[in-house]
């Protein structure tokens, strides 16, 4: 039997490297060990991918989605049903870093293709990821590189590559932006068959040598006849790039940092942790898996439990996973996609290329009400399979005192650590009903109802908002 610290640590790992796990899954993983589980997460090819045939057989509208939220719903389906949780979590990481939105692209299948690229390449080498990103049709359209021509540059992609995707403000000049933009001229998308009335067709990356500025450029102190790949080669070797990426990883996987636009004037909360991640980047030539291996096995990660506010996607997906009613194809994934949006994170449609602000900024009055109602509504529903499983677990423990009932419920949903005020409120509720008993059918029915109420209260707590 795993001890409480082991379960807490494994729960922490699965919340951060995935979208949470049930109590049974945590115990299974503990039997393999923490380091072995980290390796399982870092090597998703050990597990079967989501079965696309099954998905598109039962939900054919997802394939080449004609409009949102179908593409968002498909991604939520994958987040819940994947056996490769880190692969999907990294897709979300890259989506939040390389924010690309349907508000402009207006082409849901292309955004889905971009996420598929993150899924495929997201644990690899940062240079390769940036090259794929620069050639990704949705990104090209999003940042206007199809309008970036020899002799008439459009700086949008070149600027965001440096400012938001790799180095951060303060590490390059306006001239560097112009020179980088020249290097990416001719990187564009080919025309495609227009949408409707026969469904969607896909863009493809197109390199047009006649539109590429092959002249000499000076970029970050280097001079040559650079093209886009040369620019990326220089970018990924900048110390600022390693630090910028490390800080994003820390913010996403470890603990909330200040908002990105302030990073050039606000130091990291844990400079030593950033140094460790930078060292991993340097030693591995920018390998993402190597950086994450250091991160997940570090003390700074293990000691950072409940120090991040769950993003809406994390809250919605992890709660739906726990409730167990969205396993496999079924109607209703649209509602989960809408829920993410109502809580402030419309997947595949970030507010701007700067992406969403994170941490405490996920929470405002309206968003908090949505978060609480959603989570309490699911976890308080004792008809759902995941909740039934929690009730069955408590029942297997026999009669429980009110204190033990609170502890057992907290154990089942995380395990979740709560503050004194929350615990006192939960104990008040538990003590009102007295001992949890299962001796008779009437006792069992009443106890089941009380567990549902307790789980709903936990889901409504301040503490539940943290990952």
């Amino acid at each position, binding site marked *: 039997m795993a001890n409480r610290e082991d379960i807490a640590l494994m729960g922490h790992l699965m919340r951060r490297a995935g979208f949470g796990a049930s109590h049974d899954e945590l115990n299974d993983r503990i039997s393999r060990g923490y380091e072995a589980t980290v390796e399982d997460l870092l090597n998703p090819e050990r597990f079967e991918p989501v079965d696309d*045939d099954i998905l*598109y*057989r*039962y*939900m*054919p*509208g*997802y*394939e*080449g*989605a*004609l409009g949102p939220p*179908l593409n968002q*719903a498909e991604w939520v389906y994958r987040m819940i049903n994947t056996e490769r949780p880190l692969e999907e979590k990294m897709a979300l990481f890259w989506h939040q870093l390389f924010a690309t939105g349907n508000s402009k692209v207006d082409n849901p299948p292309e955004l889905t293709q971009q996420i598929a690229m993150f899924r495929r390449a997201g644990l690899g080498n940062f240079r390769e990821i940036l090259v794929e990103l620069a050639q990704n049709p949705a990104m090209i359209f999003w940042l206007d590189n199809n309008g970036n021509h020899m002799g008439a540059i459009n700086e949008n992609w070149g600027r965001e590559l440096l400012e938001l995707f790799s180095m951060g403000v303060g590490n390059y000049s306006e001239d560097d932006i112009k020179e980088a933009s020249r290097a990416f001229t001719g990187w564009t998308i080919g*025309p*495609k*068959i*227009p949408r*409707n*009335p*026969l*469904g969607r*067709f896909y863009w493809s990356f197109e390199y047009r040598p006649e539109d590429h500025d092959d002249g000499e450029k000076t970029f970050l102190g280097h001079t040559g006849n650079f093209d886009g790949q040369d620019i990326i080669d220089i970018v990924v070797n900048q110390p600022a790039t390693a630090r910028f990426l490390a800080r994003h990883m820390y913010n996403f996987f470890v603990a909330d940092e200040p908002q990105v636009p302030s990073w050039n004037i606000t130091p990291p909360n844990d400079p030593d942790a950033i140094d460790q991640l930078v060292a991993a980047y340097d030693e591995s030539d920018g390998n993402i898996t190597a950086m994450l291996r250091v991160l997940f096995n570090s003390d700074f990660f293990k000691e950072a439990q409940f120090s991040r506010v769950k993003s809406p996607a994390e809250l919605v997906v992890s709660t739906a996973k726990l409730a167990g009613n969205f396993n496999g194809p*079924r*109607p*209703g*994934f*649209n509602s989960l996609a809408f829920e993410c949006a109502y809580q402030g994170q419309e997947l595949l449609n970030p507010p701007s290329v700067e992406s969403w602000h994170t941490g405490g900024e996920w929470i405002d009055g309206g968003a908090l009400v949505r978060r609480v109602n959603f989570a309490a509504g699911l976890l308080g529903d004792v008809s759902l399979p995941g909740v039934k499983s929690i009730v069955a677990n408590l029942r297997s423990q026999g009669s429980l005192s009110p204190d033990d009932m609170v502890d057992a419920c907290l154990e089942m949903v995380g395990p979740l650590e709560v503050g004194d005020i929350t615990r006192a409120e939960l104990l008040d509720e538990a003590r009102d009903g007295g001992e949890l008993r299962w001796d008779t059918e009437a006792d069992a029915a009443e106890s089941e109802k009380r567990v549902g109420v307790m789980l709903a209260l936990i889901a409504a707590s301040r503490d539940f908002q943290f990952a």
Partner: protein
Amino acid sequence: MLTTVAAGRVFDYNYCIGMYGMSGQGFWSPQDFALADNNMVYVISRGAEELGQRISRVTLDHQFLGQFGAFGRGDGQFIWPRAITLDDEGNVYASDDFLNRVSAFDPEGTFIRSWGDAGDGKGELNGPCGIAFDAEGNMLVVDSQNHRVQRFTHKGKHLSSFGKHGDGDGEFNLPWGLCLDDAGNVYVADWKNNRVQKFDSDGNFLLKFEAAPRSGVGDLHGPTGVAVDSEGDVYVTDWGNHRLQVYAPDGRFITSLVGDAQQPSPWTQTYIDANPDIVKARRRVDLEPEWRFRRPVSVRVDAHDRIFVLEANRHRIQVYDKVKDYEEHPLNL
């Protein structure tokens, strides 16, 4: 190519019907269709989530006559509409693989009844897909997630069943569509086993249609629909490979058709003509991807051996003629 000649058969592309439409004229992720008298076709659309579920009544010459059914659990409504067939009187039957029931309508679309209980016991359903009537007027239902075929009266009284989960002869893995030939033999698209199996009318295994040994040309990836023509040739919608596979009666692979809709349907052409930007955009691209099948999901053959192929992701039906009196042109032209 518009004309395919193979093993003494000639398949000649004729025309296509349909386009995407969230409602009204058009289809949305259509899953199946049924050919009726008087040139009429019933097409069942799955839509997506809570939109688009319906049965459309159209004609083979592109008239949209109306639609019935909508999203919901009530009488005459659907959550996951899947397959459709007609009885001898022209009444319409449709399966729903989420609600685990079959609904019946009169030819105009007025709801008559529904039947089906969820479960895995005798006569219970889990994910009903393909449906077809036998010569006695009883209905065969592909009970997909129970990996079997069940036979019911048209009012839903259970009569018999065959098949179980597995990959041996007579076993199934998530079967999808089915059809009967004139002799009452039953052909089942054994979706996850990537083959079609043929049974006699009592459910005894006879033959299977799958990849030709070592050739790969007859490979199936998730077959969905199956039909048999008057000469016994078997047509299979090869959903995962986006093509129609044609087999001889003995299971020998004949050829593949990949879709040839070079001329848009009248509905599609009207939509294009009404949008100058679309006209302009189409002049700059290779349109071939548009001609080809995308998720062919159901195939039917009529009394004249015309072959109708429904595409879920192009929301249309492509029609081929099996030409019996074809004369080869001079090859030295």
